């Protein structure tokens, strides 16, 4: 009833090409952005949003969203399956650390950029097999990336500044003399980076480069015949995707954990991010955020439910069963989504919107 675009006429192609062509979408989106930047800090200042919410929910949600976005560019848009996401994140994190450590007065944002570029370089190298192989075989090749990078970071002391345990402590995030110390300021920092990068990603996927990725994904032979060059397109997808993963890895180290070791970027993390992309929706920017929210929130919701059950009906579960239930729910949801809606939450959202346009009428 409220979600109608009737009467909204587009007089120029610029208007038609907007990210949100429908006015209601623009209003909702503007509201979300304002709420995220102003509303959440305001609520925090009157004590409604706790530190725990910032450090355990909002910040990791945003960082994983960025990593999922990176993987979505590669897998969802360009159709190249990758299991090396965590490795690219590790490259970003450790490269940023070393730039900060070894270059005097390195601005943090530049270090993140350079970290991302290092990840992009690694992405290009490990993307080379994609020129000859695809699908599961490519996934196996990217698996090699995963193990090789973690092995390198563990074995070569220089990367971790010869720390005996292999653990690095990320430097403080400071911009123009302001240090981001509190959990809320870190949240705002991450939010700004993620918002800008999500906007850039959206712009890429709606312009020529994005179309080249999707063309290669949908029909590589036809893409070649109309003039896209497969090598360039695929390697570009690997580079951009790895850049995003690299920056998210740097944020993971600097704004979320503070101290990280190479083992923190293991295959488990790669799989988590792949699940986010699958559950959220392949080939959708929004899906990356939905998938990340889902997977960050799921354990929290499950543990609260289990606690609630224990308290309310005096259910006495053996300790540790919560995490087992979590794993089981996780696995079954993945299977559920693969069968029912391979395009994930983003598609459900889209179907919902289409229904909403008609509601309350059947046609």
């Amino acid at each position, binding site marked *: 009833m409220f979600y109608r675009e009737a009467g909204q006429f587009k007089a120029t192609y610029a208007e038609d090409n907007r990210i949100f062509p429908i006015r209601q979408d623009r209003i909702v989106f503007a509201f979300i952005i304002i709420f995220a930047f102003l509303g959440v800090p305001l609520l925090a200042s009157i004590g409604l949003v706790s530190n725990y919410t910032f450090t355990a929910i909002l910040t990791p949600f945003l960082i994983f969203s960025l990593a999922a976005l990176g993987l979505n560019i590669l897998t969802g848009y360009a159709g190249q399956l990758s299991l090396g996401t965590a490795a690219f994140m590790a490259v970003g994190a450790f490269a940023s650390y070393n730039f900060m450590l070894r270059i005097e007065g390195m601005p943090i944002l530049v270090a993140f950029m350079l970290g991302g570029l290092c990840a992009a370089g690694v992405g290009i190298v490990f993307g080379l097999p994609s020129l000859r192989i695809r699908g599961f075989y490519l996934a196996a090749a990217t698996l090699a990336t995963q193990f090789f990078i973690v092995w390198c970071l563990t074995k070569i002391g220089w990367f971790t500044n010869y720390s005996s345990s292999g653990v690095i402590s990320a430097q403080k995030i400071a911009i123009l003399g302001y240090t981001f110390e509190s959990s809320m300021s870190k949240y705002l920092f991450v939010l700004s980076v993620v918002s800008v990068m999500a906007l850039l990603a959206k712009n890429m996927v709606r312009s020529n480069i994005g179309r080249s990725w999707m063309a290669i994904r*949908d*029909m590589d032979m036809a893409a070649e*015949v109309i*003039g896209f060059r497969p090598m360039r397109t695929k390697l570009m997808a690997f580079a951009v995707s790895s850049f995003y993963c690299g920056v998210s890895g740097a944020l993971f180290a600097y704004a979320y954990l503070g101290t990280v070791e190479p083992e923190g970027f293991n295959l488990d993390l790669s799989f988590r991010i792949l699940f986010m992309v699958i559950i959220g929706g392949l080939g959708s920017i929004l899906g990356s955020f939905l998938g990340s929210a889902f997977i960050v929130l799921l354990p929290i919701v499950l543990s609260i439910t289990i606690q609630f059950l224990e308290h309310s009906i005096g259910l006495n579960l053996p300790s540790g069963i919560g995490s087992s239930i979590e794993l089981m729910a996780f696995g079954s949801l993945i299977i559920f989504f693969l069968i029912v809606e391979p395009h994930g939450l983003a598609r459900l959202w889209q179907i919902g919107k289409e229904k909403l346009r008609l509601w309350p009428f059947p046609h």
Partner: protein
Amino acid sequence: MMNKRIGEVILSFENISLSFGGVKALTRIGFDVREHEIRAIIGPNGAGKSSMLNVINGVYHPQEGEIVFRGKSRRGMNTYESAKSGIARTFQNIALFKGMSVLDNIMTGRNLKMRSNFLLDALYWGPAQREEIAHRRKVEEIIDFLEIQHIRKTPVGRLAYGLQKRVELGRALAAEPSILLLDEPMAGMNVEEKQDMCRFILDVNDQLGTTIILIEHDMGVVMDISDRVVVLDYGKKIADGTPDEVRANQDVIDAYLGVAH
């Protein structure tokens, strides 16, 4: 009247041979294509028609022979070069990008005309946006021409077969090709759809002056719209000439109807 506009030879083949392992797909094929003409390639199934198109736009590389394109002689083409030099095509089994909208599919056809790089694309600002809109305007002209305005935002996977064929033609036209290769553009269509498609092909040829190389099984269509026809059978050329000449050729009749032994 039609012959007046036909120009010089722009593409010619000499002794093209192509084989896959022991299978000979094409044996010493030679013919030429004149500018602005509609050139049909016909023949029974497996005669090597699609292989011939694949040779023209560089998907297959012939083992022997020579291609002369715009006065330049070469052994084979590669796909990028041939797209760059103005050869566009459609496929026998529709090869659209299923996950993308009609508009985006046709926009991909313009990729070689786009200048902006991915950084400008990412900012979607200034020149990148202007370029996107300029190309959008061109694409809308094609959408108007093919009468598919109502489906421009629909994902192509949801469209009926006939419309998909039309979108594929649109994608090829978006490149503003000088030579258009059409691989069975009317296969599986009903009469009205065929008439529409014929009209589009003739209009493209007439208004834009595009040279068209066409594979088609519908003899009525081929004899009606093409200027010259080359007939292949078992990878060999058995006839070449105007529709009337080809129709009267005994080898062609034998190839299609069989010979009494």
